[in-house]
């Protein structure tokens, strides 16, 4: 008995039962599919590398003709009209004004709707609202641009009659509205991931729903919420159509949101659509600006990932 148990079974033909374990299917597909999938992955990586490579070489050529100091610290941006000037600060300030207005709109509203969805809404309500949010996130941004121009701008001009037709406030608000669904959806995911047991612990101490949401769920989900805010910021920086349509094309170092400004993205559109000759120094500006934009959003995305990982083992 004992030796039978401990010894490995012999593979020879002693057994009266015959089983055949050879595969009946062809292995060809199993060999081809991974190769195809790898090629797809490689293609997207190669494209990215190509884009970054073009950006870098073109930017490098641009900075052979324009001093990087003048670019980074110059306060006047007029690369197309003489006297030419290549100070990127007006574009940066325009971009950040839009971004900050957008975040002021999107983060509180997105967070509030996320708290509502995760802590208050019935399952049925959540099932209806979540897909609607996703649809909203898929609306082409040009539609938002005309929404800004034809609805929000007149409203603002009703309150502040001196406001220009193109102004940063209207575009910023609508960029904010556009990213609410993203903030809401990501924050809601983070809050739903907070274990039920933590909520129960607080309820059992006599906390109200609001206290549980604010003092237990939000702090426990903070990493995800902060990450969603950083992504929102980065999304607002990169937004193009809304600002092109509604914020104007006046690179200006100003703090007044009622004036027309220009963002980095809108500038790139303006030059790409115009008849600026390829290879000229004017044309080179879009690569320098594109590179600046790329670095900023890249750093922000890294920051978002870092934040999300940093606080992960909170619960």
């Amino acid at each position, binding site marked *: 008995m004992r030796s039978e148990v401990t010894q490995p079974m012999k593979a020879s033909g002693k057994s009266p039962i015959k089983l055949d374990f050879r595969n009946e299917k062809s292995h060809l597909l199993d060999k081809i599919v991974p190769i195809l999938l790898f090629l797809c992955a490689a293609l997207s990586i190669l494209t990215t590398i190509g884009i970054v490579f073009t950006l870098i070489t073109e930017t490098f050529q641009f900075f052979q003709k324009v001093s990087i100091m003048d670019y980074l610290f110059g306060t006047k941006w007029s690369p197309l009209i003489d006297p030419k000037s290549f100070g990127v600060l007006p574009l940066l300030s325009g971009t950040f004004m839009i971004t900050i207005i957008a975040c002021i709109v999107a983060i509180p509203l997105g967070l509030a709707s996320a708290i509502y969805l995760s802590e208050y809404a019935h399952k049925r309500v959540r099932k209806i609202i979540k897909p609607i949010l996703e649809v909203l996130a898929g609306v082409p941004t040009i539609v938002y641009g005309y929404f800004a121009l034809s609805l929000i701008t007149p409203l603002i001009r009703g309150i502040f009659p001196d406001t220009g037709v193109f102004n940063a406030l209207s575009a910023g608000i609508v960029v904010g509205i556009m990213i609410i669904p993203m903030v809401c959806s990501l924050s809601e995911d983070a809050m739903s991931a907070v274990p039920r*047991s933590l909520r129960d612990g607080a309820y*059992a*101490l006599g906390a109200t729903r609001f206290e549980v949401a604010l003092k237990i769920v939000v*702090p426990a989900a903070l990493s995800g919420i902060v990450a969603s805010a950083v992504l929102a910021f980065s999304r607002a920086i990169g937004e193009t159509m809304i600002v092109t349509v509604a914020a104007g094309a006046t690179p200006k170092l100003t703090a007044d949101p009622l004036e027309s400004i220009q963002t980095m993205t809108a500038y790139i559109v303006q030059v790409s659509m115009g008849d600026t000759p390829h290879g000229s120094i004017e044309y080179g500006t879009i690569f320098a600006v594109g590179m600046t934009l790329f670095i900023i959003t890249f750093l922000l995305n890294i920051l978002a990932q870092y934040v999300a990982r940093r606080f992960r083992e909170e*619960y």
Partner: protein
Amino acid sequence: MGTLIDIQSLNLYYGTFHALKDVSMDIPEKAITAFIGPSGCGKSTLLRTLNRMNDMIPGTRIEGQIAVGGTDIYSREVDVETLRKKVGMVFQQPNPFPKSIYDNVAYGPRLHGIRSKGKLDEIVETSLRSAALWGEVKDHLKRSALSLSGGQQQRLCIARALAVNPDILLMDEATSALDPISTLKIEELAQDLKDRYTIVMVTHNMHQAARVSNQTVFFLNGEVVEYSDTEKLFSNPRDQRTEDYISGRFG
């Protein structure tokens, strides 16, 4: 011993599922009452009706009456947050908040409006002492509660519950996730606490019920089969089903 909790003809439904069937019992004050019975028989459900934690489960319906200290806790005038302050609860899995040890204990008092640092310090210390944890943590109250061992976390949860000064402490299998030594500590703790608090505990461990409790209730399929003094229930059960269960013949 007076009756603190008076349950009368309680029926509870989760949707169409009849989870508690005509449950009636008197739970005495300043004693330990244990609920035993096989899995799914409704022990946790009954426990959660006592601090109305079932309110949050959609589709729950309740008939009958539960009076705590003479007040029907399901009547309109009862504020459920105030009720939960008076009827504390400790869960099966230790669930400390991802905050410091101090903030965990101070969470309840702060919730109910205590702001003074001195008062909070005092509450934190007495609660941790009552939960027999003070000696182990007094030098690092600022450390994360999650750095404690499972047994310490559970005692922290007890301290957190005691910090809002409840009259009743509900413990739902509070030791089932713990090692034998931590379990013993919590059992001793419960013994100490019963002079000041009314304790209702759910346990899967019949030896624990026999060791710690004064009264034991045996449930089967949502019904109370037998309710008597612990000693009597274990040495001389009236019902055949109780005898089968405590002798390990099913469950």
